């Protein structure tokens, strides 16, 4: 009763990464994008504000408009978009898909995982208390407000102070809710270095730094949160009728884990090389699944890269050189791609991407291999928590392809 079908390329996930890859491949290959939502476009569909498309489309547009453009682009290029279709299992080659049209087994010569990333919900952050309604992630909040027009309360506490946290503040404002407090676990300097100051000025939102939410309170609907100021050790109650847990990303890596793909310890993203190959032959990955979480245009640029790599694989390129693993060290928590093979292209945009737990205004990045410093670069941009830190690939110019793993850290 399961329909069988074959395709050259199956792309799991029709967000910016998957759609861009589909568009790039569709001219020459038979491409199927499998998207579980009723509409393709990914997260930008419900991120109803400006700031999309800068690096890939060379324009600035809103999330929903951007999502539509990418979906139309893939469609016009000849890719097949299968929506309301979810990949529920696979063996690396054949995908089990459920859709209203029935069950389909899709056999593909190449598979691209572009399943994105999500925010950890309150439970995954292990925050105790009651279990009332009114506790959201930014993703859920934006779906409520921008897709369904639901009301989301009037007084909100936003947990986190990254780009996405301000996106939550904007959504709340749009929905008529005031952000009465934004909490940041980081110091004042680190918080404002991320994006805080601009946001604070623009929105007049009070920000409590070195502060965490310790408890959620309320029966039925949330009535408040208990916050702890780590500087003073004092706790206090903040009354609110909604709480938004923002950021704290985790890749949507279920399919990657089920296949047994190696994960990057700091990000839990599947490990890839600079061509975006995973360790499974013919299985590639792109977008925020690899780097939770970058902006949509960078996810889209991954899509272009992965398309080129898929094309090479389909044309029969095999015999990969062994790669050198690249690990992140304090204060960097992860770095991607995590594998560099001789002969492969430089990473997307000529840069490695990393995540830092500390703010460094003028960072010097150091690469060490076999106890020896093999590279050192200064970046004119800071390393700031809560946003991607880009590292010029020239850092690894002196890499010994037969050496052991490279460690990348910030010089103190």
């Amino acid at each position: 009763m399961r329909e069988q079908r074959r395709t050259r390329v199956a792309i799991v996930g029709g967000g910016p990464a998957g759609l861009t890859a589909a568009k790039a491949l569709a001219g020459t290959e038979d491409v199927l994008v499998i998207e579980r939502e009723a509409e393709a476009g990914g997260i930008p569909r419900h991120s109803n504000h400006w700031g999309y498309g800068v690096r890939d489309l060379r324009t600035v547009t809103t999330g929903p408009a951007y999502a539509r453009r990418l979906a139309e682009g893939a469609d016009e290029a000849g890719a097949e978009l299968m929506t309301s279709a979810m990949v529920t299992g696979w063996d690396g080659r054949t995908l089990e898909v459920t859709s209203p049209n029935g069950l389909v087994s899709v056999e593909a010569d190449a598979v691209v995982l572009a399943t994105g990333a999500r925010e950890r919900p309150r439970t995954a952050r292990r925050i105790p208390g009651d279990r009332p309604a009114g506790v959201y992630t930014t993703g859920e909040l934006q779906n409520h407000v921008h897709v369904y027009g639901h009301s989301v309360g009037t007084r909100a506490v936003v947990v986190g102070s990254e780009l996405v946290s301000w996106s939550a503040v904007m959504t709340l404002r749009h929905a008529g809710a005031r952000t009465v407090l934004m909490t940041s676990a980081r110091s004042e300097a680190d918080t404002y270095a991320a994006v805080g100051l601009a946001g604070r000025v623009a929105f007049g939102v009070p920000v409590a730094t070195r502060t965490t939410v310790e408890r959620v309170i309320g029966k039925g609907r949330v009535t408040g949160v208990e916050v702890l100021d780590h500087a003073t050790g004092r706790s206090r109650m903040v009354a609110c009728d909604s709480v938004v847990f923002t950021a704290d990303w985790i890749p949507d890596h279920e399919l990657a884990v089920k296949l047994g793909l190696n994960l990057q310890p700091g990000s839990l993203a599947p490990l890839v090389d600079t061509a975006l190959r995973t360790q499974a032959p013919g299985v590639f990955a792109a977008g925020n699944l690899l780097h939770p979480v970058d902006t949509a245009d960078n996810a889209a640029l991954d899509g272009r890269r992965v398309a080129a790599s898929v094309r090479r694989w389909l044309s029969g390129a095999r015999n990969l050189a062994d790669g050198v693993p690249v690990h992140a060290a304090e204060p960097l928590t992860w770095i991607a791609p995590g594998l560099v093979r001789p002969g492969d292209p430089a990473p997307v945009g000529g840069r490695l991407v990393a995540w830092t737990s500390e703010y460094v205004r003028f960072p010097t990045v150091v690469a060490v291999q076999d106890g020896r410093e093999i590279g050192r670069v200064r970046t004119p941009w800071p390393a700031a928590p809560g946003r991607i830190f880009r590292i010029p690939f020239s850092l690894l110019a002196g890499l010994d392809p037969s050496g052991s793993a490279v460690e990348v850290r910030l010089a103190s």
Partner: protein
Amino acid sequence: MSPNQPAAAPADVFDVAVVGAGVVGSAVARELSGYRLRVALVDARHDVGDVTSKANTAILHTGFDAKPGSLEARLVHDGYLLLTDYAESVGIPVERTGALLVAWNAEQHESLPGLRDKAEANGYHETFLIDADAVYEREPHLGPGALGGLVVPGESIICPWTTTLAYATEAKARGVELLLGRTVTGADVGADATTLQTSAGPIRARWVVNAAGLGSDHLDRAFGHDRFTITPRRGELFVFDKLTRPLVSEVLLPVPSAKGKGVLISPTIYGNVMLGPTAEDLTDRTDTSTSAEGFAQLLDKGRTILPELLAQEVTATYAGLRAATEHSDYVVDVDPAQRYLCLGGIRSTGLTSSMALAQHAADLLGGAGLDLVPVPDAELPEPPRMPYIGESGVRPFADPERIASDPAYGEIVCFCERVTRGEIRDALASAIPPTDRGGLARRTRATNGRCQGFYCGAHVDDLLNGGKGHA
């Protein structure tokens, strides 16, 4: 007209009012609905099974470690067999995973043979002892230091939500009146009938069954008794991501001590792994919040048992309150003069014992003078077929025939848990429909997965509110 509408009874007086629609009260109502009786099932909440019966460790116990000779031991033993059969007939998810009691120190190790003997005394003959090597062969991810174990092959995991719902659904189909949103505040025992004062007007019944769980002592006092006091004993739990399910193949039980059953690690029927529960006496009977202390305690215990689990993602946390009393056994007593049956202090085994407790309740009521005339099988409606929300069977999203017959079963709404629009629609149209997201989750698992609504929360709320669709 339902098969239970005796023409003689005045319309406003029930033969029996069961107070409390948890797993116990629902089982009792279902049992009584097999007789020619007009039965009301009353609860303060707007859903059945919305208190302790929804927040437990969901194990169908063999009763191997119960106190031999106690009422609880007998009812757990019998209830296990009854519910295993019933689950099969109505489609309640059950998996016979078995359990392994792991001894972590010499004292625990020495107590294992005694536990085996206790199991024998309880009429359960399948347990056997194994050495440390065999323990690790069964459970290779176990932390270091296990000295040996006792295997209890019959211990099973079950869906507690479907259980209560199945009882209540069948009871309703057989004519029981489900009176939700009614808090019973007092009882006036009259000559022929008792008037229960409730938050939504009086309910009159000739007989009253107290299955009020955490409120059972208060209701008992309303009948003039003073024989037990409930102490809410909180149990907090962690539910780990489904990706951790391969770490454990059976229920990992601690060796019981004087302090209670202790913290276990168990697969859940939905395919997660659960760690808990704690045991802490509270005073507030409504405090089902989780706590930082509870979490710390669980993580500490879990680290010894299954260290790899701790670094994994947590999907949910919750707490349930056991209706503990000063007595070591259930407080079950019938008062023929008051036409009143108390089923109090059904503390930590009520899910398992529910059906046996219900039969026992019917026996006691019959013995005390309630006229029990069985409704012939031919007159009873077919038992319900409950929607399947477990992990070991075939769910609609994976069933090509279901999807072919109705494409809504191929339309996945909650991605993490693969819940389809068809299932949500069915739940909303069911005999006992959910009234909030939690209720829908208990019927379908929608929003219960790892993203907790990041992707589907708004869509699910929209369907719950009648599906107004996009803004």
